[in-house]
């Protein structure tokens, strides 16, 4: 038993550590790790991953909320969309054929790889959309000199629509969908990148929690897998976040992208070999 337990803890630790350094979260790496190395069925890996995403996001987002980077109103508004998507996705995960899940996972890995290599600068808007103004979604962030800069929000319905997709992917694939959430807020709604990242971190736990509750209530979470995975990913993410300021993450970016592309190819190959 100790060999199995040690292997699961080591896999989960590695996934949590890389997930933390890359900023993509442990779920992106633990699902393929469990499927490829531990030979677990996709549904089991997804259930275990959702629990671990809840655990890691709890620690990460606390600091961002405390320091004031999270836009709570944007988070709560968009969580209506992500929770709807996540509950639907988690429900469908028990029905959708594995081949579809594997192909979707491969596609999400490609999106995460693109998110990792893209270059972007903040495009702060002075005038928001009427709906965003009515919902009081604007906020303030400090610039380089420490002066507060007001930002506005646009395209709320479009952002919310992409959030439903992010939630759906989270429930179906056991990932936090952080990359998709940041892109929705940053690209579409024009929130500053740091606010998008902090708000996404806040939302990831709730989105994954919605999916995890469906899996737990359905009995689709294997305690022998999910428990060591939750512990390993949490410890790995914690150590990763502690080391983050001392590591040149930009230098590792190419490595992360290669890992994501390899996972995408492996998952797509698995799916296609079922045909």
């Amino acid at each position, binding site marked *: 038993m100790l060999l199995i337990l040690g292997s699961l803890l080591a896999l989960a630790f590695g996934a949590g550590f890389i997930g933390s350094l890359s900023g993509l979260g442990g779920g992106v790496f633990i699902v393929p790790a469990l499927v490829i190395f531990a030979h677990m069925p996709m549904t089991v890996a997804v259930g275990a991953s959702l629990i671990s995403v809840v655990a890691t996001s709890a620690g990460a987002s606390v600091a961002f909320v405390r320091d004031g980077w999270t836009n709570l109103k944007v988070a709560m508004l968009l969580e*209506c969309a992500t929770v709807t998507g996540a509950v639907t996705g988690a429900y469908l995960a028990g029905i959708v054929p594995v081949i579809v899940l594997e192909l979707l996972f491969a596609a999400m890995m490609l999106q995460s790889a693109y998110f990792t290599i893209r270059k972007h600068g903040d495009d702060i808007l002075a005038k928001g959309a009427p709906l965003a103004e009515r919902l009081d979604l604007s906020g303030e962030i400090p610039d380089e000199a420490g002066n507060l800069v007001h930002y506005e929000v646009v395209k709320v319905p479009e952002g919310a629509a992409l959030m439903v997709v992010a939630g759906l992917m989270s429930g179906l694939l056991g990932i936090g969908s952080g990359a998709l959430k940041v892109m929705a807020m940053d690209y579409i709604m024009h929130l500053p990148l740091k606010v998008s990242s902090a708000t996404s971190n806040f939302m990831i736990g709730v989105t994954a929690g919605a999916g995890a509750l469906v899996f737990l209530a359905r009995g689709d979470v294997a305690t022998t897998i999910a428990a060591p995975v939750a512990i390993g990913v949490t410890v790995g993410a914690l150590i990763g976040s502690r080391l983050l300021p001392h590591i040149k993450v930009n230098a590792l970016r190419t490595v992360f992208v290669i890992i994501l592309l390899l996972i995408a190819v492996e998952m797509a190959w698995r799916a296609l070999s079922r045909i």
Partner: protein
Amino acid sequence: MAGAFQNMKKPPVGRSEEDRILRVWTPLLLRTILIVAMIVLVVGLILAAIYTPEYFVDRYRAVQMGHLIGREKFATLANRILQRNPHAFLMIGLFVLTLVPLARVAFCFILFIRQRDWSYVVFTAYVLLGLIAGVLLGRVG
């Protein structure tokens, strides 16, 4: 995403009562729930390693073959806890973990009620109901 937060100045933190709820009590409660869940999971794994190592290995192999235990009644789970079944401890630990997002949304709900921001009370209530609906959907689906 955490990389985006390196070397940046901290924004001013609000000092209102609402901010204290959100930025002091919420992190404290979330960390407490997380630590309690982790302790329960570690205790469950230690108990499994001592008392039921063969069962753990058998379950691991069965799960690899796609055989999950499936839905269990909460009463059955409670009974197994009383019998000090390690796997019931693990299940309880996992359930406690999922309280983290529920607690976070519940705190936001209280915050928006105190601010009398009724639009966001409705949005937050929808999210809370969505989480509860997830449990119900899992039980019947």
